[in-house]
């Protein structure tokens, strides 16, 4: 299937919203892929970090918003520390999560944690993951 790139407002709006939320210039990315090369979770992802940012550049919101990658980012900032253009990919990921359908299902909500697990893990992990992955 051929992807249609329409120079319409919708695409621009998506890109601008991501830039506004993340505070990052996604067009600074020249697709060197270093973020993906060092990402500890890349092997689990359906789209690599550099592909996410590429799709944002192209304004292809749907492809980005349905990617599993958004919920595999551990915010470890390895990509940020090595990006030659100084883009904080974790911020871009968070910006995309931010504009997911607010009525949609939580990617990871409190219901998915068994009481036993909740008893065992450090508190910080629960606070952290709900902050990241639920609305």
């Amino acid at each position, binding site marked *: 299937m051929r992807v249609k790139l329409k120079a319409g407002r919708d695409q621009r709006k998506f890109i601008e919203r991501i830039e506004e939320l993340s505070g990052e210039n996604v067009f*600074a990315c*020249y*697709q*060197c*892929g*270093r*973020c*993906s*090369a*060092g*990402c500890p979770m*890349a*092997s689990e992802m359906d*789209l*690599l970090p*550099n*592909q996410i940012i590429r799709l944002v550049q192209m304004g292809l919101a749907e492809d980005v918003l349905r990617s599993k990658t958004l919920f595999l980012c551990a915010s470890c900032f*390895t990509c940020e520390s*090595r*990006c*030659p*253009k*100084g883009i904080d990919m974790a911020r871009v990921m968070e910006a995309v999560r931010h504009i997911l359908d607010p009525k949609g299902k939580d990617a990871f909500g409190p219901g998915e944690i068994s009481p036993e697990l909740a008893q065992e893990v450090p508190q910080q992990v629960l606070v952290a993951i709900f902050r990241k992955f639920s609305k």
Partner: protein
Amino acid sequence: MTAKTENKEKRIGLFVCHCGVNIAGVVDVEKVAQVLTDSPGVTFSTDYVYMCSDPGQQMIIDTIKEKHLDGIVVAACSPTLHEKTFREAARLAGLNPYQIEIANIREQDSWVHTDKEKATKKAVKIVKSHVAKARQNENLDPIRVDVTRRALVIGGGVSGLQAALDIADQGCEVVLVERSPSIGGKMIQLSETFPTLDCSQCILTPKMVEVSRHPRIKLLTCHEVDSISGFVGNFKVRIKKKPRYVDETLCNLCAECEKVCPQVVPDEFNMGLSFRKAIYMPFPQAIPGTYTLDAEHCLGLNPVRCGKCKDVCDKKAIDYDMKEKIVEEEVGAVVVATGYDLYTMQALGEYGGEKYEDVVNGLEFERILSASGPTGGVMRRPSDGKVPKSIVFVQCSGSRDTEKHLPYCSKICCMYTAKHAMMYRHRVPDGQATVFYIDVRTGGKSFDEFYMRAVEEDKVLYIRGKVSKIFKEGDKLIVWGVDTLTGKKVEVEADMVVLAMAIVKADGVQNLVKKLKISTDIHGFLAEAHPKLRPVESLNAGFYLAGCAHGPKDIPETVAQASAAAAKVGDLFAQKELLHEPTIVPVNDELCSGCGICVTMCPYAARTLDPARGVVVVKEILCEGCGACAAACPSGAAQQRNQTDDQIFSMLRAMLRE
């Protein structure tokens, strides 16, 4: 020098150009010419369709003669375009060229406004102001000065050698200064050169020999520029001669000294991959062909402490008492060809260049490839001498990184990496060469064909992605990358990694540019006078740029720039005398109170306070005419020629008074 125009009213001619419809379409040119007829000083005024055309110029010439005009205002396009044209026309008519004024009514009027009435009104004001200025213009003659036809070339790499040879072949003398013990620069360290795979030493050594034998080239190795004074055509240079402790005229290269020397140190020529003695010859073809004693590593320049080399030297060439000396040279032009260095691997902690012996930079790999290198041209890795069966090449190591390293492209790495990978595959036919790249840039004659050859014939695997991390596991280096084309994360086990480190300014160049008072860009590369139209000159007159000191470039480009710099030097030396714009700021002795404010304003040290007379004196040839001093002078003693305060006030009145 300046013939004061007499006090009587000048006879000004005004010529208003239509420039086809470019001006006349918006500005009522006839009205402009007509309105100004009655202005004070205007003797003649007319308009014409193209003033810059031959008939237009002829009209100006004829009118000057007929009407005895002594001042001209041409209302036309920007003075950057035709000021020269009309000055030449004035000269042909016997009028001093500095009596020409250009009123810009095109770029700064007709082209930027649409309201005809307002644009015409504005044109009238512009022209009026120039008439007011023309009334007070003086006849001026360019300042003339002799030129010393002798050049200084700083740097003995391929760019310096080429520039020196070209200038010397034009018939002028050259002083070539090189801080290290031999000429040859970085190019002599290279193995083969892209895209032809010529042996670098084989093509450079003849040039080195030619330089050393040239009757008009004075070769000063182990020398450094200490200071420079004077101005274009007339520089005085103080050059520091660093002691070599070996008399190069006596040394016969018998190598006995080297055999007995007990001090072993890393060899710079082989990038520290092998060792040399404290008394050494940098490389077999070094020029001058002499041993050099490295005082820093010598046991003490003292026969009591060691003295072994001195004992065995039959020629008595070794002298521990040599001292630093200053030599002086007079030159008319300076070519700066100080080359480059590689960005330090330490800056890229994630690549482990400082930690792992088998992670090397491009120049180290050149030495490993070179037949004269530490392994005699056999492909071996530094840590254990094993033949590497897999090498990963990492492009853009430090380059194109706006965040932490260097934002620019180092330009030559794409090509030399292709060469490295190719050479490696030739030496180790069953070896795997993998190149990580972001973009491959092969703009250059036969460059892309060369890169394609590496891919198609030598089966070098190019992976599009930047390496994130390199680390050691056992005796393997693990390289983490990604192939952005397939979207796969990639891990390569390598025996060796070559980092194409970014090219940076040569170490120490920042001190040199301060001495020469020439400017650099923010990365420390020398700045050219104009990025397109004056690419081999510095803004500071008399200084020329060649090679990587100016920015990353390959050998052919370096040689071309060196030859261009030499041609520019020839250009300068071909002039009988140098002409300098006369619109400078002299001092009126009678008004000068000797406060010295203007002296502090001058960026060129053109102004000095004469303590005996209590007034400021101006070295006219040094004055560039910026006028900062004129604006600062409290007494009005410093007036810029043909832009005096009176002229400025008159112009303001003409422009603003309704």
